[in-house]
């Protein structure tokens, strides 16, 4: 990915709208780099992060992106994710900061013992705020898209956060034309979302056009899973204790999103390539986050999490 490989134009069969989305994202990245002192890119290893990083590489080529990457590691990510992450960082020669809420870990907070809501708050939201404050980042770049969830649809591209990392949905800065206002006072920060206008299908089409490497978990394979609470959960390591009525079985599954393995449901799928996935998605009528436990805790749950500082 570094420097951007020179491809003859005829090989890049990107539709016009993808080129437009790509250009806008690059523009946003460059604004972030120009307007802030200490940016950080939130790298969560998933497909959106993969595209986000790919766009960052393009935005600053032939230079490297002028900021560090941050991964908030809960300790419960799929093992394949961590392996993929370490491999990619080495290949690209980028700086990655891995942050874990060690206090939470020591207190024994796990998705099994404390429920998804409490676990997410401590190991993700609190951990993120801790990392941002500790390193003094004034802007955190994320791969969130407005099509993901209703409250995200109203979020700005430069989304202002108070000193306590809070989001005030009703008092956001208007964003006109391509003008992004990143002025802040010391201690305040901004979350920047270069992929605001992308949809899930856009992401996959782009991955297809650009041949972006992904964690293999996105592609269907036979994997050991159990059904729990209506979700198909992959047994990724021995920390997952089975209930008496549960049995592990091998099924052809893949993941639409990747998070902590106990909280991320797999879907039955035969899609083993990006092209298959694009095909599958075009026919699918289930929303992307339907298999994420944390979004369903209560009505308006994402909005509340965001106010509290969740990405």
């Amino acid at each position, binding site marked *: 990915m570094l420097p951007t490989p020179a491809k003859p134009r005829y090989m*890049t069969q990107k539709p016009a*709208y993808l*080129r437009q989305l790509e250009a806008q994202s690059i523009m946003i990245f460059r604004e972030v780099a120009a307007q802030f002192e200490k940016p950080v890119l939130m790298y969560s290893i998933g497909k959106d992060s993969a595209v986000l990083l790919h766009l960052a590489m393009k935005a600053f080529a*032939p*230079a490297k992106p002028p900021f560090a990457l941050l991964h908030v590691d809960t300790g419960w990510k799929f093992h394949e994710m961590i392996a993929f992450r370490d491999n990619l960082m080495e290949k690209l020669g980028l700086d990655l900061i891995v942050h874990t809420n060690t206090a939470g870990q020591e207190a024994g907070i796990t998705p099994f013992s404390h429920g998804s809501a409490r676990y997410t708050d401590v190991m993700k939201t609190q951990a993120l705020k801790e990392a941002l404050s500790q390193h003094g980042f004034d802007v955190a770049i994320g791969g969130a898209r407005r099509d993901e*969830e*209703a409250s995200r649809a109203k979020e700005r591209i430069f989304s202002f956060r108070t000193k306590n990392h809070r989001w005030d949905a009703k008092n956001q800065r208007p964003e006109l*034309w*391509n*003008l992004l206002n990143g002025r802040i006072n010391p201690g305040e920060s901004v979350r920047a979302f270069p992929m605001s206008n992308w949809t899930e299908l856009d992401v996959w089409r782009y991955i297809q056009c650009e041949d972006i490497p992904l964690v293999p978990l996105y592609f269907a394979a036979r994997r050991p899973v159990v059904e729990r609470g209506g979700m198909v959960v992959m047994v990724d390591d021995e920390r997952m204790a089975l209930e008496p009525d549960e049995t592990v079985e091998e099924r052809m599954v893949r993941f639409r999103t990747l998070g902590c393995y106990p909280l991320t449901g797999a879907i039955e799928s035969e899609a083993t390539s990006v092209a298959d996935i694009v095909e599958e998605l075009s026919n699918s009528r289930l929303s992307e986050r339907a298999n994420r436990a944390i979004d369903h805790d209560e009505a308006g749950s994402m909005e509340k999490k965001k106010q509290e500082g969740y990405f």
Partner: protein
Amino acid sequence: MAEVQAGTGDKGLLRFLTCGSVDDGKSTLIGHLLYDCNEVSEDGLSLLETQSKTVGRAGEALDYSLLVDGLLAEREQGITIDVAYRYFSTPRRKFIVADTPGHEQYTRNMATGASNSDVAVLLVDARKGLAIQTKRHSKIVSLMGIRHLVLAVNKMDLVDYDQQVFLDIERDYAEFAQKLGTSIIQAIPLSALAGDNISAPSPTMPWYDGPTLLSYLETVTIRDDPQNKAFRLPVQLVNRPNLNFRGFSGCLSAGNMAVGDKVRVGPSGELSAIASILTPDGEAECASSGDAVTVTLQDEVDISRGNVIAAADDPVPVSDQFAAHIIWMHQKPLLPGRQLQLRLGAQSVNASITELKYVINYEDNSHIAGKTLNFNETGYCNLALDQVVAFDTFENNSDMGGFILVDKLTNETVGAGMIAFGLRRADNVHWQAMDVDKQSRAAIKNQKPCILWFTGLSGSGKSTVANLLEKKLLARGSHTYLLDGDNVRHGLNHDLGFTDEDRVENIRRVSEVSKLMVDAGLIVMVSFISPFRSERRMARQMVETHEFIEVFVDTPLEICEARDVKGLYKKARAGEIKNFTGIDSPYEPPEEADIHLHAGDRSPEELAEEVFAVLEEQNIV
């Protein structure tokens, strides 16, 4: 989720906004569009069914607005309080919809949504006709430069699909819109709730034979293609990974650029040419409007964030004073005179409103006098900036003519503006008397002060020769100054145009300045077209006889026009520039020039050498 296919018929993105009064059914309309385009997922649908029963406001039917009203407060109050962006696609196009609020206090968000839209869908309740918000939003849409407007006469089901109701509203609106003088209007009768004329023609309104809303959106062609304009690359970032690469990154906001193209950088005016273009797909020979690029130039040019790399034959205008429309977006009113940060492209400068000419009354589109702009009001103002910026008029290029105003203490975005045109106005020139005289100032410099007055047509080579001469003089230790016509017009003579009156004043001022410089003991080169004999005579009379040397750079008009370094002759011939010397304004050649340079086919070096020889001969240097 239909896919947009690459290749033929790939029309790219269309961004549109919905607007109109509260309760006119905007969210319902968008919800229905999403539903019809299969963008609502199964789990979204089951959520919609449940919520329609509990908090829905559509009786037994599905309440499509629940698909788009995302925030808790909105669901509770049944209103939209912020811009929501929605996405859907058909095989022909991908759409981004800005769903904007109808309540007056959120009008700023409506302007925000409008700023990034190509088309406006303006909803009107068939039962109520045009409301104040309808007119307010129309005005904002028009100010924001949106040229395509759909007048969506909604809730036709509640007026028994009566054609007369539709025709009356269409007529009323056409009458109102005429005063705005903007959009291409397509009126469509529809029912967002029942789904009439959304994506399928309505069987209940056979009298309507126009397009459905969706087919209109799929096929509308946005004219005014920025590709046909001269290129503009606002520089966001200087990319310098090592000493061998110095690139300038930004998105082309207009035109096409290619490797080898001559460029002029605004505001500095420096010239160079494109050496390489890096696109998201690697090195390329050319790039066009909308592309995110990193370019390198053939020369070492001092460029930083905020500068604009533009086509050399159509350079970007620069100014530090503007007339502009301003939409005020903050509860605390605008106070003319207070300093704000102005952000235009990647440029950030200090600015203040120097004069509020009028406030727009949305109801009848009239102008009212005002001392301040209140929240959601729009005014027409003059602004003064603390430095010169490169710009285009908003009408010409919204990226280069649209700006925001930021409060320097709270950092909030408090206003948005659209540049109508640049003003040329200079501050007062202050005079300070001196005690030391001209002779002593000249003596210490070991030279005889004088004015070398270069006159000739635009493009005759005056400035080039003067510039070379100055280098020669400087090299031998002379103290010089070069007054260039274009440069002085950027500062001292900002306020002057090209009418005969202004040309006279232009020369008068420059003569005065040259006189001061001679008084300072300098060798002054003046490079001005100065087309009229009487003004050159006036200049001559201001100093002592031996101190004025008239240099006639005699290049035939055909050669000047063929060179056309600044693209001005082309514009003058096209009638875009009035009063252009040699075209529609006269040039009176000197009758007895002190130095007559027959310049047509000789190199500037030769000509500079000739002048230098005369100076030596006259013991000036």
